[in-house]
């Protein structure tokens, strides 16, 4: 197989995989039960919830069959009379089995979440979630801020190794090494 053929193989593989790509929404199950004739499982992310944007997802089924066209309305009532609401959409969910919507919960404390499934206003359930104060924005980005530390440590390790090799051989030289062809 030629080099071009290798490219074709890998590109085809990745293209097929990309077509099938979808996200998992993840998150924790916060409620499960019957809403009229439907069985529903509610997921919430992030876990634990903190002030800011919260993703609610619902897995709705009837006799084990996922229901993707039934309207689902979410209302969140927080401390001090704050409230917000939204409609769940397929488009908000990366997972094709779920429907989702994002609500901004502006304050910390207990929030009562009411979810109404279908047009019948009687088919709703409520549950309570406790929303923590949001961590400072840098905390969420911490993993992106400490990447330089391992790199710096690797550079230090490299210097130590080079110094050791210089002491032994006079100068760093890969020419007498089995992997010389690889390195060059």
């Amino acid at each position, binding site marked *: *197989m*030629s*080099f071009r*053929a*290798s490219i074709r*193989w*890998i590109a085809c*593989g*990745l293209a*097929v*995989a*990309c077509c*099938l*790509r*979808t*996200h*998992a*929404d*993840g*998150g*924790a*199950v916060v409620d*499960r039960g019957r809403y009229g004739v439907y*069985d*529903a*499982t509610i997921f919430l992310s992030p*876990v634990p919830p903190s002030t800011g944007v919260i993703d609610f997802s619902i*897995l*709705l*089924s009837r*006799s*084990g*069959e*996922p229901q993707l066209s039934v309207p689902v309305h979410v209302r969140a009532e927080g401390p001090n009379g704050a409230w917000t609401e939204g409609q769940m959409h397929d488009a908000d969910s*990366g*997972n*094709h*089995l779920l429907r989702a919507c994002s609500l901004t919960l502006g304050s910390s404390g207990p929030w009562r979440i009411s979810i109404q499934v279908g047009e019948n206003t009687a088919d709703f359930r409520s549950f309570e979630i406790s929303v923590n104060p949001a961590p400072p*924005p*840098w905390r969420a*980005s911490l993993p*992106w*801020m400490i990447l*330089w530390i391992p*790199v*710096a440590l690797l*550079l230090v*390790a*490299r*210097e130590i*190794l080079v110094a*050791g*090799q210089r002491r032994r051989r006079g100068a*760093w030289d*890969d020419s007498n*090494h089995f*992997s010389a062809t*690889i*390195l*060059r």
Partner: protein
Amino acid sequence: MVAIALSSLLYLRGVRGIVGRVRGFPTWRPKCFAAGVTVLFLALASPIDSIGHMLLWVHMVQHWLLIMIAAPLILLGSPGIPMLRGLPKVVRRQALGPFIASPFVRRCLTLLLNPFTGWMAFALVNWIWHYPLFYGAALESTLVHRFEHASFLAGSMLFWWQIIAPWPWKARWADAALVVYLLAADVQNTIFSAIVTFSDSVLYSNYLATAPALGWDALRDQRMAGAFMWTAGQVVMLPAAIFLILRALKIVRPKPFVARERPATVSHLTEPFDLLRVAWIGSFLRKRAARESIRWTLALIALILVIDGFFGPADAPSNMAGTLPWTHWRGLVVIALLFGGNFLCMSCPLMAPRNLMRRWWKPRFRWPSALRSKWLAVGLIAIWLITYEAFDLWSNPRATAFIFVAYFAAILMIDGLFRGGSFCKWVCPIGQFHMTQSLVSPLSVSVRNTALCATCIGRECIRGSGSGHAKSASVSLSISVPGCELELFQPAKRGNLDCTFCLDCVDACPHDNVGILTQSPSVALTDRRWGSSIGRVASRVDVAAMLALLSFGAFANAAGMTGPWLDLVAAVTNSFELTSTIAIEAAMTSVAIIVLPVIMMSCAALISSRICGISLRESLCVGAHAIVPIGASMWCVHWFFHLATSASTAIPVMQRALNDVGLAWFGEPEWAESCCGPVPSWLLPVELVLLQLGLVVSGWMVWRGSAQRTGRRAILASIPWWTLSLILWFVGVWIVFQPMQMRGTSTL
């Protein structure tokens, strides 16, 4: 996703030249690698991953794909050597070389690639992650879930390594022993599967809620998962064991290797990349007329901006002069510098009329000796940075247009009077910016073969030649192709400082010996050799001052658009009861780009020189050169932020301008587009990574510069400059977390 794409790219680059041509690397290996990567992708980013959150058996299918299919297939592709070869040469040799050659690292690898380690890793990962506590944690947190998958893949690779022994490693154990190794793993898999299958209770409570929603009873789902793990494990392990037995009995033998006709080639790995040898782009750039056409196109655009700036609306977001240069051009500048080189000077619109003028008008004077340093440029850069902040140039299309006109007038006047590229080399603050930042760029105009230059008599690259690409060394008396106007002699050219990428030297060299080659980014910052026309740049105080000014300027310029800075300006203005913020902005910017750098750099240089006994000047030069990368990363972060958040602002202003001249084809301006869009979620991580890249490279430059001058005391000499780099990095991180003024956008 990014990791898979990067690994595939490295593999492809490294496999070239060895596939089918080296014993041990037959043609089926890349196919296996492609299949492995595809399965990995399917397992991690397909509906399997989504549904695995709701059904245990689907999650087990995902784990099976990872550990039993993807891992062995990838190893059959023998990715180790190709991926090492696929790395850039500098990384391969300079960064990884010492590790690969180190006996200690080799001992660690030997330990890691031991059959006992492989078996234990495989079993432990399996048992630990399927323990309900950890399994639940992985289901609830994306980060833990990713870590779980990474450890599954790593553990299984260590396990399969022993059996597959990817080229060029040899299997540690004989085939018969490996059969026992494999069957022992199968037994532990059977025990685990049996526990899951025959358990009377649901082990993973998360599925109690989700499985019924998909029509599955949680316990039935769990039994299905156990049965799947049991049988699917056997489906892979038993044939592998049978194959090993057959090989041990010599019933199957490897096919004899038949090499392809052409021998293994590594030229694409050993020779530096040369942009001028790339099809289309290379031949385009080599044409003088093509380069000139780019300049004229940009000159025409500049003319349109000037007209719109003077006669269009005064509101910046509605005017092309208020958006295109400040948002789009600057964003493209940093991208070009980061991934290429100084292509901005190459395409400079000012050069078009200037070159036209030079056809008929030959300047008579030489640039005065007293001004042959960077001090004039330092002053102009400082004035530029202060004026930009004080007069909010970005919000004033008239001022922008005026600057364009002044710039054109200045180059025509200076290059009309003085010979060579005097304006570019000694005056232009924007050119100095490009040249300085291109010190960290990956591409540089340099000679392909230095040995050839040693025998060159004509030295046309600096003197000029009689014809464009004449391949003889004969020099015509009338010079029709100019040599380097910036007085850079190619064989002694160091890095990109003072190089405008005009490619005159490419045209002039009769031996076709100049290209746009890859350089180790930033290495020119610690080059202490004498350089043509620039001398020993590592010891020049004027250059050090320019580098420090531009590096601190990056942070001052970015800080100037943050909420706290603007609040401070307002507070100080109010406290002095002033009606305009101009004086305060100018004073604060001066402090940030002149006073603070002088204090901080002097302190660091003083401490460093005292500790190590080098001169203050030397120490200052080390620091000023070393902070260029962190400064460059801040410029990138700042300007790329504007481009990423406000790219769409170009659409309505262009629609408006076309409408103004009666061309309504593109419709009425969509002013909604001129509001800045939401900040994309990927931008902050990209900004943070860029800043860290700058910090690491700066730290490395400090070390190299200090080691060159102080030898054993390099660590002590570096500490003050590392501290300064860290302070700048903290400032950069602080800036990216601040609320930003969205410049060049409307608040519609």
